[in-house]
């Protein structure tokens, strides 16, 4: 999930190190590692491919003239390089990852194994359909799980992540409106919305109209209804919302929206709070993306890949994008062209080449089959229970802007408890790093000052939650007591101290260059 502190570059002053300097620069098991371009040398390679004879005659005179400029490394060096880099990373497998809005839950290893079965991992998107019936069956089974869990009649599978799903949803809505011969240009988006929502609305050619939040962290339903009008195409609501709360007036808002001839797009990034307990279809939602990489645990190391299927109401279903999966006497088939459309289908277009994130589909279905409907329900309950446990255990020492709770799967705090301490939300979060934890989401949602959004997920034991709570409580009390050592210049125990983001943005160095060439940015 995005961290707005990234948008407020920090430039820490240099701090002197009280560490015993080593000769090598490495420290015990912590190795510094140069860039591959600094390690490699020419002539070396980590693969053995025979040098074949070959003529230029079929290259249209466009044979590459110069070298690419890639460094040469042997396999042992490459392995050591990436193993060392990996050791500089925090990960779910190493500890609690309470990054609000990101649902960093356990990624089961069985999912990885299944995704690597040659029958899934080594099939081509365009090989004859007779040879991929198993793959198409899997997609159809996953579609059934998604529509059943959401209580929606249809789902578009091709979107490659949540934001892509948002785009898919809005384009479906756009098409539906056009099919009615109308044009509607405005989309209502709460100020608490995730950045992708307004960005997507703009991308889809709509103007964004912000809806304020109430003092208790909900969307102001009255303000929203007041903003409805003939030019409103849709509202984009996140539910549970980005403050970790369920919108109590959601059905009422849905009715109002529909009455106004608009559609209700729901950002489903927080589906993990309600899966198996609440069906978005019952709430009057017309379209919702599901982040398979969050709710259904497909690993997205380093920031991806994801998958963002979009469930659709009956009103929107006909406008789903190509390709369309259909089943007939000869089995499953992907309809990739308008010429073969089933009755009523009016696809708005195509989201991407081929038919979506199959690798993620395999993992998500494996997750669903493993959990089952009962396990998915239990997971949601545990996620909500854990967030409330954290809220209840910390609200007396930290400040919960929306009071007593209950919350859904995320516990939100603001920085008022730090007022006057000189400790900022950033300091507080960075101090968590020294304690062996990944910080919570900071400065999001924007409706709360110095927000700290904690999403423990269902993957933590009570013992783990208790340890985390103990650390946060102690930190909060220290901060209030004016004991700042732990916070000033934190982290101290990580592979790096705070990094100078201002300098990085002022003189961007976005790639390695051979020493002789000047850095382009300079």
């Amino acid at each position, binding site marked *: 999930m995005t961290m*707005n502190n*990234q*948008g407020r570059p920090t430039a820490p002053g*240099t701090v002197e*190190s009280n560490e015993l300097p080593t000769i090598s620069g490495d420290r015990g098991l912590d190795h510094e590692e140069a860039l591959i371009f600094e390690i490699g040398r*020419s002539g*070396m390679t*980590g693969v053995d491919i025979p040098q074949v004879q*070959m003529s230029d005659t079929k290259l249209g005179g*466009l044979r*590459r003239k110069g*070298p*690419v400029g*890639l460094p040469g490394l042997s396999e042992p060096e490459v392995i050591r390089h990436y193993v060392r*880099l990996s050791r500089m*990373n*925090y*990960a779910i497998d190493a500890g609690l*990852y309470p990054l609000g809005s*990101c649902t960093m839950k356990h990624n*089961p290893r069985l999912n990885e194994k*299944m995704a690597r079965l040659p*029958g899934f991992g080594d*099939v081509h998107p365009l090989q*004859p359909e007779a040879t991929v019936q198993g*793959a198409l069956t899997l997609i159809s089974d996953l579609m059934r799980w998604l529509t*059943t869990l959401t209580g929606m009649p249809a789902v578009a599978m091709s979107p490659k992540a949540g934001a892509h799903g948002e785009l898919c949803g809005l384009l479906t809505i756009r098409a539906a409106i056009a099919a009615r011969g109308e044009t509607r240009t405005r989309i209502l988006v709460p100020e608490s919305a995730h*950045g992708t929502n307004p*960005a997507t609305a*703009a991308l889809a050619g709509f103007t964004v109209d912000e809806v304020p939040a109430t003092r208790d962290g909900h969307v102001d339903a009255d303000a929203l209804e007041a903003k409805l009008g003939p030019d409103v195409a849709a509202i984009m609501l996140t539910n549970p919302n980005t403050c970790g709360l369920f919108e109590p007036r959601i059905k009422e808002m849905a009715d109002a929206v529909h009455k106004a001839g608009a559609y209700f797009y729901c950002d489903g990034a927080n589906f993990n709070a309600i899966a198996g*307990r*609440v069906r978005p279809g*019952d709430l009057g939602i017309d379209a919702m993306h599901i982040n398979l990489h969050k709710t259904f645990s497909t690993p*997205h*190391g*380093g*920031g991806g890949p994801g998958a963002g299927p979009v469930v659709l109401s009956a009103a929107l279903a006909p406008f789903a994008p*190509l390709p369309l999966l259909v089943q007939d006497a000869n089995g499953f088939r992907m309809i990739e062209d308008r010429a073969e459309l089933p009755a009523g289908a009016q696809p708005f*277009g*195509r989201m*991407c*080449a081929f038919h979506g994130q199959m*690798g993620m589909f395999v993992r998500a*279905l*494996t997750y669903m089959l493993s959990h089952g409907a*009962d396990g998915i329900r*239990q*997971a949601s309950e545990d996620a909500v*229970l854990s967030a*409330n*446990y954290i809220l*209840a255990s910390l609200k007396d020492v930290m400040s919960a802007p929306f009071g007593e709770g*209950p919350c*859904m799967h995320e516990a939100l705090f603001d920085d008022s408890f730090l007022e006057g301490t000189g400790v900022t939300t950033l300091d507080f979060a960075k101090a968590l790093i020294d304690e062996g934890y990944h910080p919570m989401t900071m400065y999001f949602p924007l409706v709360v000052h110095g927000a700290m959004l904690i999403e423990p997920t269902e993957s*933590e034991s009570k013992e*783990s939650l208790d340890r985390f709570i103990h650390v946060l409580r102690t930190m909060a009390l220290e901060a209030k007591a004016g004991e700042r050592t732990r916070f000033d210049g934190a982290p101290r125990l990580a*592979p*790096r101290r705070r990094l100078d983001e201002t300098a990085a*943005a002022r003189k961007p*160095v976005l790639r390695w260059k051979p020493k002789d060439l000047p850095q382009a940015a300079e």
Partner: protein
Amino acid sequence: MRYLPLTNTDRSEMLAKIGARDIDALFRDVPKAAIVGRSAFDLTDTKGELEVDRLLSRMAAKNVAAGAAPFFCGAGAYRHHVPAAVDHLIQRSEFLTSYTPYQPEIAQGTLQYLFEFQTQVALLTGMEVANASLYDGSTATAEAVLMAQRLTKRSKAILSGGLHPHYAETVETVANLSGEVVRTPVTPGNAEDIAALIDDKTACVVVQSPDVFGLIRDLRPIAEAAHAKGALLIAVVTEIVSLGLIEPPGAMGADIVAAEGQGIGNGLNFGGPYVGLFATREKFLRQMPGRLVGETQDAGGKRGYVLTLSTREQHIRREKATSNICTNSGLCCLAFTIHLSLLGEEGFSRLARANHARASALADRLSKVKGVSLITPSFFNEFTLKLPKAAKGIVDRLTTKGIIAGVPASRLMPHEADAANLLIVAATETTTDEDCDAFVSALAEAVS
């Protein structure tokens, strides 16, 4: 359930601490009517690993894996040998189960490989800067068109008929909203005269090379024509390995390169996840979509890396962002960058040569089959054949013989009448002599 660490005792203790009667009390805000029970879902319950493994293995067994047959499909996804070290390394817990490197102090591993990835992509494409990936080649192409429209403040995008039809449709889907998209006629085996169509309303021309039929395109004249009219050239590459042997778009005047990186480090995966490569000129930096990693220093003076120029992105700029992308292709970049690090200059160029040699030899043999002709005079590892009958029928026939003969052009462009008999055939370093023999004789028989 094996993935859920809370016991019932834990749950009641936690509820007690919260002061909630039961779990339902926590769902207070949900309209009663909207709370459903187990019976609302006609779905199975928890299954053990053994059982799930069996179910999915059976499904997988219903597919013909590319490695299990003579296999010649390409058209945007290519089967290459990925060294075992790649899959081993990307499964390191610290890579697999970390997320976007928002906390640079404990994400240097991810940040450094992304910085290396950006450098590799810039080098391959011959461009100045590259981002930390987009979803795939098709969405990268769409982003490129939108970026060109922003940069030129012009609306028209001209798409070459040689652009992969799925890519063209993806571009149209989004670019039509902000402007107009023109597609030039499909000219299998020939380069259309796209330069002629460029006018002063043109934001960009989009040309793929090798094109969807495998033909290698000379981008230089197109770049000149585009630049003369103040338009940008967007070069699309669907088989990234081709850049080991062919002049990079950057060297031919491209302003933006949008490419599919699957061919390096990533499997076929039935279409995804893949990795979108995006490179451009330094001066266009601030209009780039997607994440960027930059070098900097930490408070101790040590070199380090951070996400930078985020002011382009949705989480800062919201509706004014250069793109709505958030989650990208992290792990696929990692596979890409590890594989390319293993290859290095030497390995990469040998790989490219091996591919071209394979394809050339196969093309020679197949075009000798009676009634079959090669329509792509130049190509890298993929070429197009004209068959005496509809390609789809031939492919289906060979499939029954256990040969996956390639992609019938009609599957991608059903409306192109004269594409009906065209077969797009790819061969890579994984193609064996036996594979070729089987294909040649089966084709000869099928067309006779």
